[in-house]
């Protein structure tokens, strides 16, 4: 499906720009030819359907070509990013059974695993034509999850094609820029999705060139950033007065884009904001477009066409609107198992549904809101409390830059909610607790702890365990009083 899409792009959009990076511009025909050449060389070196191949290619365009070429060889590929420490790359390679590492840098070698340098050139793109085994696993996407142990998501070309469809519906031929390296899982998948839509992939090089400038230079129409990058973007617009191109839509992944940040973003950067709820196992589930970000900024908007989502209780009974429960979803683009991880698979995939581990609710109009991770739900004396409701409320305080709720365990009461706050300026903790209490009642945090920054795990998600460990009862060094 993905290679068929590339072959179609070569045939139908051959002269259109597929890739732009500093110093490089490829049309779809040239990209197809480059992929054909590298695929031939890799196959000539013995890479085939029996192999699992690790990929350590830091160059953005080179990485895209190698990823597509490896799909053409029929092998399974897994990224061994150059930015990861050697032991982590080795662990991934070992767990996934890599027999070869394809790398542009010899220092990426891993012990006894063969190293192969990819070759780049041009061959007729006809070689991209079928047969394409669309239901054979071609890519193991790595997900850090919340446990710290990586999970591997076995994606076929069909999954990628279906996910591309929900990721960008209705389809549009954009000029797409994402400042994050293609070596990151989500970034790589989005670059591959773009092939399906005949989008132009604009890459930023590692020299930290101003991507604002690149957005203007290449008339970028779709910019994908993380919530952290969105914050910086808003600060930058405020500080330097720079602007995005007028018709540039900004897409932010993840549900951790609190309402105050969305409002600030709309006000200072652009109203063309799209906040997407997506997972590596599934692709996009729902997106809050400009109207939802304006009117219901705590939501992730409407579920995508072709995706089915239900809110269920612990017995899988479907709940009515406005009742918080477990989210489950299904679509043709979802995977149905993790690679070589039975316990994780049994927890996340049941009866054709994917359970992302998130809690949420629909409103009366079908707008979905995420309350937090099911694992993160607190239970204080039988009162269910979700981190997101605390975080959304505390974030509304003008002196709070960002915050994260977490629980301390009590033998008798269950989970005592606390909130860690990165403050803009000195705040009186008691006043902030009162602010939260007036809005949340019994679901309010019982203590405020001030931190310089919020701890994150390898997947850039809030590390609530780290907060819990740091602020164990009786030892709150910087808790309670006004920020010093």
């Amino acid at each position, binding site marked *: 499906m993905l290679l068929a899409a590339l072959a179609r792009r070569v045939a139908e959009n051959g002269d259109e720009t597929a890739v732009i990076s500093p110093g490089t511009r490829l049309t779809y025909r040239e990209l197809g030819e480059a992929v054909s050449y590298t695929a031939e060389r890799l196959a000539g070196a013995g890479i085939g359907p029996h192999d699992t191949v690790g990929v350590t290619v830091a160059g953005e365009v080179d990485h895209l070509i190698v990823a597509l070429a490896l799909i053409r060889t029929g092998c399974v590929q897994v990224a061994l990013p150059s930015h990861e420490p050697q032991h982590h790359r080795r662990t991934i390679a070992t767990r996934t059974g890599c027999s070869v590492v394809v790398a542009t840098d010899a220092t990426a070698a891993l012990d006894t695993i063969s190293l192969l340098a990819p070759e780049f050139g041009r061959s007729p793109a006809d070689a991209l034509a079928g047969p394409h085994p669309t239901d054979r696993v071609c890519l193991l996407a790595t997900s850090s999850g919340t446990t710290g142990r990586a999970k591997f998501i076995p994606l076929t070309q069909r999954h990628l094609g279906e996910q591309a469809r929900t990721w960008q519906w209705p389809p549009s031929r954009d000029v797409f820029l994402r400042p994050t390296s293609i070596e990151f899982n989500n970034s790589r998948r989005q670059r591959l999705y773009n092939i399906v839509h005949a989008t132009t992939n604009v890459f930023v090089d590692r020299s930290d060139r101003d991507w604002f400038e690149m957005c203007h230079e290449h008339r970028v129409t779709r910019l994908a950033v993380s919530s952290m990058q969105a914050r910086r973007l808003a600060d930058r617009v405020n500080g330097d007065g720079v602007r995005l191109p007028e018709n540039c839509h900004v897409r932010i992944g993840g549900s951790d884009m609190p309402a105050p940040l969305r409002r600030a973003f709309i006000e200072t950067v652009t109203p063309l904001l799209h906040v997407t709820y997506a997972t590596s196992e599934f692709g996009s589930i729902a997106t809050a477009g400009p109207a939802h970000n304006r009117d219901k900024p705590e939501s992730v908007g409407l579920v995508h066409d072709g995706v089915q989502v239900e809110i269920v209780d612990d017995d899988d009974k479907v709940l009515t609107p406005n009742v918080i429960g477990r989210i489950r979803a299904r679509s043709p683009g979802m995977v149905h198992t993790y690679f070589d991880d039975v316990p994780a698979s049994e927890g996340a995939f049941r009866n054709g549904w994917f359970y992302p581990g998130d809690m949420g609710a629909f409103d009366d109009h079908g707008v979905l809101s995420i309350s937090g991770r099911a694992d993160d739900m607190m239970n204080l*004396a039988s009162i269910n409390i979700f981190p997101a409701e605390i975080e959304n409320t505390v974030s509304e305080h003008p002196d709070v830059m960002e915050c994260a709720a977490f629980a*301390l365990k*009590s*033998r*008798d*009461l269950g989970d*005592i909610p*606390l909130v860690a706050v990165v403050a803009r300026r000195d705040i009186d903790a*008691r006043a902030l*607790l*009162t602010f939260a*209490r*007036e809005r949340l009642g*019994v679901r309010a945090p*019982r*203590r405020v702890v001030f931190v310089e920054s919020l701890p994150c795990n390898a997947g850039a998600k809030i590390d609530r365990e780290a907060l819990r460990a740091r602020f*164990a*009862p*009786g*030892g*709150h060094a910087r808790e309670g009083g006004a920020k010093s």
Partner: protein
Amino acid sequence: MSTRATAIVQNALDSCSIATPGRHSPGETGLIPFSMSFEEIGFDSLAFMEFCISVHLDTGIEMTTEQLIAFGSPEAVAAYIEERL
């Protein structure tokens, strides 16, 4: 009574005032004699819970509502905390 045990109990009473706004402001809870019984102060189940939480967060000592009722007053709780610290 140690200053620390007194401060912990005072903080717990203040926490109850945040939990039940309008009943006592934090300033007012400083006027409540520790010898008053919880019943006289007007403790309900929510206030007991908040008191337990506050003591737990400040000291790591876990208490139940039943224990607080048995102690009867903030003064008795402060004496217990002083022993445990």
